[in-house]
């Protein structure tokens, strides 16, 4: 009898073992606190939820954004190139979104232009010149600046930059440049902290080699460190630009919100985000204006995706 059990062939052994596991049914697996399956269900569903969220955002906004072209028969090309935005005109209302697309682009590039030198300078200061000061003083400053809500930046722009513009450049003081400055200041800390990380990642041997051939500190920074950190610095700037592009309320508070194309940077203007924030609340669902605003949102989503692709491309090239 005993001998028989030992001599049981392997196939039967496996069968009885798997039967033992199967006896602990689905119910047991989901209610036992130590069960692996229960944890896995929780973990995997959370991970899947991430996919669901992104897919849902993309799908819903795309479908809603295409309504104005499919249901209301607006022409896509005239929509994105037209410069006349008169949705309320009784006769022949026109939907030309170019001023907003242009405004968004202008704010984004000007903001990057303002933020880049200061941010990179600060990053070099933190990572090259004064490492102790950098971590003790600048790091906390940057962290606090990152944490300050965007409406507060908008409020500061409204109370300091707009009056300054009014006094020195005439007009109401609400203009494209004011918007770009507010957003530029807002993205400063983000760009600076990423740039500092990428400068710190440059290996020290490069610096030592440069000093060894008699280069000054600045020559080393300009000719060796910055080229070596190259594409990561670009990534930092592009990340900042994508944030500037998506910023809504802070820009809206200072840009003046005029639907015509600005002639100079001292003209009031509007961006994709500002026109959506301002008009969305006043429209009824299903009206052409409402659909047109959703189309603007869709364009916003598309351009955000372009930024995401660029950032991915840059960081992949760095890793390769």
């Amino acid at each position, binding site marked *: 009898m005993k001998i028989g059990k030992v001599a049981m062939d392997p196939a039967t052994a496996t069968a009885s073992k798997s039967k033992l596991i199967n006896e602990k049914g689905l119910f047991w697996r989901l209610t036992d606190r130590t069960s692996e399956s229960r944890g896995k269900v929780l973990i995997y569903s959370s991970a899947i939820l991430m*996919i669901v969220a992104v897919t849902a955002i993309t799908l819903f906004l795309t479908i809603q954004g295409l309504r104005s072209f499919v249901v209301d028969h607006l022409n896509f090309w005239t929509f994105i190139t037209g410069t006349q935005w008169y949705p309320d005109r009784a006769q022949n209302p026109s939907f030309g979104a170019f001023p907003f697309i242009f405004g968004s682009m202008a704010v984004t590039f000007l903001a990057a232009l303002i933020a880049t030198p200061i941010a990179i300078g600060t990053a070099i200061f933190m990572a090259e010149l004064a490492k102790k000061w950098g971590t003790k003083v600048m790091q906390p400053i940057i*962290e606090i600046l990152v944490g300050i809500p965007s409406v507060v930046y908008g409020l500061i722009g*409204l109370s300091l930059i707009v009056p300054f513009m009014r006094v020195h450049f005439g007009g109401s003081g609400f203009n494209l440049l004011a918007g770009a400055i507010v957003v530029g200041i807002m993205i400063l800390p983000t760009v600076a902290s990423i740039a500092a990380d990428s400068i710190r990642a440059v290996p020290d041997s490069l610096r030592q080699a440069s000093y060894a051939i008699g280069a000054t500190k600045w020559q080393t920074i300009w000719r060796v460190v910055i080229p070596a950190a190259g594409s990561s610095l670009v990534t930092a700037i592009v990340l900042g630009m994508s944030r500037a592009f998506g910023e809504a309320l802070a820009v809206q508070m200072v840009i003046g919100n005029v639907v015509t194309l600005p002639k100079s940077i001292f003209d009031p203007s509007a961006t994709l985000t500002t026109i959506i924030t301002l008009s969305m609340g006043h429209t009824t*669902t299903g009206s052409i204006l409402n659909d047109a605003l959703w189309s603007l949102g869709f364009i916003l989503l598309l351009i955000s995706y372009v930024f995401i692709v660029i950032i991915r491309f840059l960081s992949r090239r760095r890793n390769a």
Partner: protein
Amino acid sequence: MNSKVTNRIALSLIILCAAVMAGILATLLGYILVKGVSSISWHFLTTSSSPFLAGGGIKDQLWNSFYVLIITMLLTVPIGVSGGIYLAEYAKPGRLTSFIRTCVEVLASLPSIVVGMFGMLVFVNYFGFKFSVFSGALALTVFNLPVIVRVTEDGFNSLSRHQKEGGLALGLTHWHTIKTILLPAAFPSILTGIILSAGRVFGESAALLFTAGLSTPDLDFGNWNPAAPNSPLNLFRSAETLSVHIWAVNTGGIMPDVQTIANGSAAVLVICVLLFNLFARALGKVINQKLSGR
């Protein structure tokens, strides 16, 4: 020009950049605190806002901000931490994992107004939650998830391998090891990240504009029945938060004391965010000291 002179000029410019950065912070905080703190009073914090008269307070907005924050955190933390555990512990290199990583990245870089529009489309209109605390919290959950996921993943990745191997060697299942050994060990760093993200959620406005709404019903702070329409706890009433309030009074406010209200609200908002920041830092320091055994 001699290279030494260039060197000196360039280095001074770099120091100037850093000084500008510090100057911006000083101006921001200085302006907000000097202008704002004078308008903060007990009356300001405990009076409801008035749509057109001077002397309104921010009681409801302040309450709404904290309430939305708490609901958001209740939703985000479990999902985000589980998502982070997936990426740190369960994810096998492959297409699905890299797709999930991409999704987290996309969620993190979408403009908050896009998230707000999505919230309006799905939570407010499609699910019919109306402009409400709940819609707002759901939108902010979408906005905050990637941050928590990242914090959790980093927290888990910084743990020593031995902790996990110890658990597995005792014959625990992977999940049990995570739950009883790894999660408690990673908890401090995750908590620090959660508090920091709370500051971000607290100040967020664009995503709430279309989901939590621009108004608050007359709240009766004596009525704590969550089903009552004027109860502060009601999840399905509209709720203007503090940061939305700052924007709203500045763009459409007709009260005579718009400036005072805006500055006072901004000061309260900034002080709250700073407190979150300081608290997270202090916590991080204490934990660091404990872990390094000093």
